[in-house]
């Protein structure tokens, strides 16, 4: 039987993290990256993920299905 609360081993900004499944949100990725969104506009941040040959992005309020070993990158891209 699949356990919906099963933990997944992922990486956020290179750091290993254990998070509950089955999906993870944009906001939770930022939290795991140590980014405090309070008082900040979430559109300053990008979240991107890779897993094998698959890749994608998360916008605020979006989630993605977790896989063990999935890698996430969370941060800004607003400097010149």
């Amino acid at each position, binding site marked *: 039987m699949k356990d919906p609360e099963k933990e997944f081993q992922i990486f956020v900004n290179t750091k290993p993290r254990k998070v509950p499944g089955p999906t993870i949100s944009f906001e939770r990725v930022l939290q795991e990256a140590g980014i405090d969104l309070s008082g900040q506009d979430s*559109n*300053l941040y*990008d979240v991107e993920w890779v897993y094998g040959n698959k890749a994608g992005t998360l916008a605020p309020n979006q989630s*993605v299905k977790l896989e063990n070993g999935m*890698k996430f*990158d969370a*941060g800004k891209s*607003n400097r*010149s």
Partner: protein
Amino acid sequence: MPASPTGHSPDVQQLVADGYAVTIDGDYIIVDNIPYVTQARVVQRGAIISPFYEKDGVTDVKGDHAVWFTGSVPYNAKGESLASAMVANTTVAVIAGRQVLCQFSYKSERPETLKDFHAKLTHYIRKLQSYAQELEHGVSASSKGNGSIAVRQQRSVFIYSNTAVARSGLDVYENKLKLPKVAIIGLGGTGSYILDALAKTPVEAIHLYDDDIVEPATAYRMPGAPTYEEAYGKLQKTNYLKDVYSRLRTGIESHPVRIDQTNVAELNDCAFVFIAIDDGPSRGLISRYLAEKSIPFIDTGIGVDKLSDEVKLLGRIRVSAVDAGKSVLVDRLPTADDREEAVYNNIQLAELNALNAMLAVIVYKQRLNFYANEESFDTLRYNISWQSILRIGESPASP
């Protein structure tokens, strides 16, 4: 047209004196009216076109023996094809505005055939003409005393011409990049590298907007190597960069001001705009304005974070292309005010600025159909740690 050889180099003057119909069209020299034998053993006329290089009345063949021909593959009087003897290829192309049917590459044993343009062109003309004369006695490309020269100066933005373009016949590609006016907003690391690449394209005018001055820190982000005096000279970035790139080309305009509500309308006649700034609200104002005016633009951005425990940096690059009529994408740009002191303010990462700029210019050239583009996307994200470039379409991949 009466011959008026004044001011031309001796080899060009000699062609006219010999009685040839010569045209100099920008980076090409053309001789018209050259008789040759067709496959049907009929004498017809065609033009030979060669890349042309002249500076201060001195020409240079640059060791290039190839020419284009507007006629079909030539034959000798017996009806034997000269294809294997002198034709390099039969790719139909447009060179100097004319359709060419083949390219000749007949390397002579005699090096003097590349001495100058008279030697190079008459080498081909005599060969074609000699076979034609076997069929039609006295037929000739030249008529002594009736030589002519027409010069069509193509106004070039470049101070010295890129002769490689003419030589390779790539001007039909280059012409796609001849936009009337493009603006770069923000001339920091990324913006100055965008200028570096854009200045080398034949866009007519490049307008630079930035109210900042060159400082030692910014000098470490720019292409090239500013001198001590330049790094400490409190020069406006746009003035400094205009001076540097005006060594190469004309059409660079410096606006040492910040774009705001009062002057954003100066962008109205831009064919394209690059945004390379830090400030979110300015990015919002400019991008919303451009989207409303249906002016296509690319917004750029890099981000760097410290992995303090490992003493390493995480880095990412974004290129967002907003085509005319795609204003919905503006809402996804980082337009909020970012008060955080960026790691990036204190560390110089010219390679990230340069890659951000080059990806932006490549996407720009794809939008102009210069490069092939088989995938639709509006955003590229490069991630250093993964060494990947992610292409994001109009609707982000839903989870």
